[in-house]
């Protein structure tokens, strides 16, 4: 049984989440900032009549949040039946991965990532960090 992961890039690293949890990927849209919200909250966006929380995944992974000039992508994932939009640098392909290539996250991984990364798939030329999507969407 191959693992299917929807991949995306963030700061030149390849990440993946369970493809079944991904609803859609879109270009970033006009959104409303939320004063006093945690820095991981990028704002609220209107997704076909639904008010959806936008999580700045860069900030969530302990990096500098996106600035106004950045043009990240929105990866809409399903959390407890509700859509949440994760901001990522670029959305990649859906990859089918051999579970045998899956291993625990290396202990050298930055602390900010340790919490969210469930494990690593070693591919031919790079590593794919598998993210816990529920934790990632938590602000």
């Amino acid at each position, binding site marked *: 049984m191959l693992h299917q992961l929807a991949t995306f890039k963030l700061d030149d690293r390849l990440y993946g989440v369970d493809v079944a949890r991904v609803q859609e990927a879109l270009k970033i849209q006009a959104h*409303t900032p939320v004063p*006093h*919200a945690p820095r991981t*909250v990028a704002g*609220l966006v209107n997704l076909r*009549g639904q*008010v959806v*929380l936008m999580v700045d995944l860069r900030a969530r992974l302990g990096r500098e949040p996106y600035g106004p000039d950045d043009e990240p992508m929105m990866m809409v994932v399903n959390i407890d039946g509700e859509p949440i939009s994760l901001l990522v640098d670029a959305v990649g392909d859906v990859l089918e991965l051999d579970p045998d290539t899956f291993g625990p996250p290396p202990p050298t991984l930055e602390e900010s990532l340790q919490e969210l990364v469930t494990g690593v798939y070693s591919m031919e030329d790079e590593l794919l960090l598998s993210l816990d999507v529920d934790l990632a969407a*938590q602000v």
Partner: protein
Amino acid sequence: MDAMDEIVREFVVESYENLDQLDQDLVALESDAGSRALLSSVFRTIHTIKGTSGFLAFSNLESLTHVGENLLAELRDGKREMTQLTADVLLKMVDAVRDLLGSIESTGTEGTIDTAPVVAELQAVLDDPTGGAGATPAPKADAEDEAPADAEEALSEAMGALHVSDEDDEDDEELPAEEAAAEPAAESTKTIKPKIGKRPADAPAPAPATAAAPAESKPGKVEETAVRSAAEQSIRVDVDVLDALMRHVGELVLARNAMTNLAADMDDPVLVRASQRLSLIATELQQGVMKTRMQPIDHVWNKVPRMVRDISSALGRKVRLDMVGKDTELDRGVLEAIKDPLTHLIRNAIDHGIETPETRTKVGKPEQGVLTLKAYHQGGQVVIEITDDGKGIDPEVIASKAVEKNLKTAAQIEAMSPQDILQLLFLPGFSTAEKVTNVSGRGVGMDVVKTKIDGIGGVVDVQSTPGTGTTWRLRIPLTLAIMPALTVESASETFAIPQVNLLELLAIDDKLTGIDHVGDAPVYRLRGHLLPLVDLRDVLGREKRESLEGAVIAVLQADGGRFGLLVDKVRNTEEIVAKPIAAAIKTIGLYAGATLLGDGSVTLILDIPAVARRALELTETQIEGHDETAGRGDTEQMLVVSVGDGRQLAMPLGAVTRLERLPATVLETVGGASVMQYRDRITPVVDLAQMLGAGAAFREELAFVVCTRGDRTVALIANEVVDIVDSSAEERSEVSGYGLLGSIVVKDKVTELLDLEAAVTAADASFYEVDDTVFNESQVAELIGAGKGA
């Protein structure tokens, strides 16, 4: 067993409603013996009760209504004429049914009520040929709408029945057959019973509603319409359908808003007209749906007496339940949402509030405790209070437990008022801790209550006096779905303010008229009252505003107080639909929700009470050295003025109408008393320094504190207005002299509390003798004037 109880209860409630209708119908029948519509209505009511009572195994009720139904069937089908005797016996039957229902309601059984005599009387009438069709033939030629009472009529009746039974599925086939034959066969009754029983709520209502419909096509049209009463005009609707309808209306309103926006931009008269029409229809539809969803709170409350009885007997308490405001209406969504919190609070009040009878006797209270539920509308909200006269909650116990649980530090507790300490009960950590429950006896799951009430945009707070009782107060919105709101801009961002909180809007002119600073805090002099101002930019943590020019003050009402919110610009008033927001945003505690505006953008809805609280915190930190122990609950805003000799005086801000700075030359003397001409009037003046023996320090410009009551005005002279502070009653020392009530510490400086009454009467001895009605009228006049101006 519970499900059964529920069915029985619904049956009783249902039947009571129907019986009231039955009483009216029977009385009306006496004066209008031939009315087919009335007879049909009566018949169906009895038929329904019979069916359900059979299903629920109330055999007396069933046999009683069975005979009654037979008699009514003959009347309805014109086989027999209504007579005095018939009416009498039918009314007797209704009374007997009522008695039986009463017994079922209170004991769950039919009790010992003997229905045999009434059944015998009914049977006697039924068997008596003189009362039957033979003696006074039914198809009397002169009976206005009786003429076609033949086969055709019977058929139409049958059709009517068919209509009626739509909702009762397969009943269709059986009911008309039964009714057309006017001979309810025992078997067919049996087969339909369970169906009716399964849906006791649905069965009776649709029947009378459609009953009149087929009859209307008959000659007696006018009469039939006239007798359609309220009960006959109501139907029952599945709540899911209503919910869906409400959601759709919400979306419609949003789409309407978008459309209106577009139309305004396109400048096309045809489009504008179409959008206006759409707007009108959407509004009407929305109001209609809203109305449909309103229900009296009694729908939730009617379960309470039983609950109270059960809990109090289980706990060995004696409790009397008082319920005030049963008719208070609110949206059924809201009703649903408050069910659990209410249950919780009631359980809590009996369990932990009301003492055992022995304890109560010991402390000199009546053995029986009183639990009061109260509901009323206030300012577009519904207030529900749950009050017990039990032992109350001791803040000290709460405080020590909070420290023990590491929820608060001792220093934090020190700085809190008893009222604030009580609010700790709503902290999650508090409720889950079993130990706290045992000791303090309060707080189980209060965080759950708070979460639920917060979830519907409501507020819950608690007030308690140890020894005398506790009141939990819920303030909840009338409806959840659609609300009118004002959209405003602050630092280029748009926010929505619910109209409920909005009193008026004030534009700030370029001269900044009316804006003043008391200490560091900006205030606005609004028709003689000082309105504390809060900048929305500060609340939201956005960059400071460079100039007040062009800004707008939204005068808002929250938690009983008023304040002015400074915004950059007012955009629009819009109907908005509150959409749920992520928990992470809710916990910020500033937003009630989010909505979509006409242009599709997401806009945050400000939670005005929360903004007010946050603003208060801002002001507290701004005023350096502000007395942190001042709690919000019992504090009073005090105006602090200086009067020379380095003395400071404080007086209740509420009593002050205006603050003025005027040159000392305005003072004149008339007959040894100081006066000034102020607003075209001679106003008596008292120099506070002189009055307190501080020696009048004359300066060129003086601060005047103006107090107005009715048509009387008095001005008090001080050197400077220093500050406005919050002060709580406890911290006042009793040191006092003439014209003083004691003293408080403001900014490390001892400040004397002015006896304002003494000061004012020193200037105008009869100041307080003004008739209160005059006072009120002038205030009203002022308000009306203000309303026109705004």
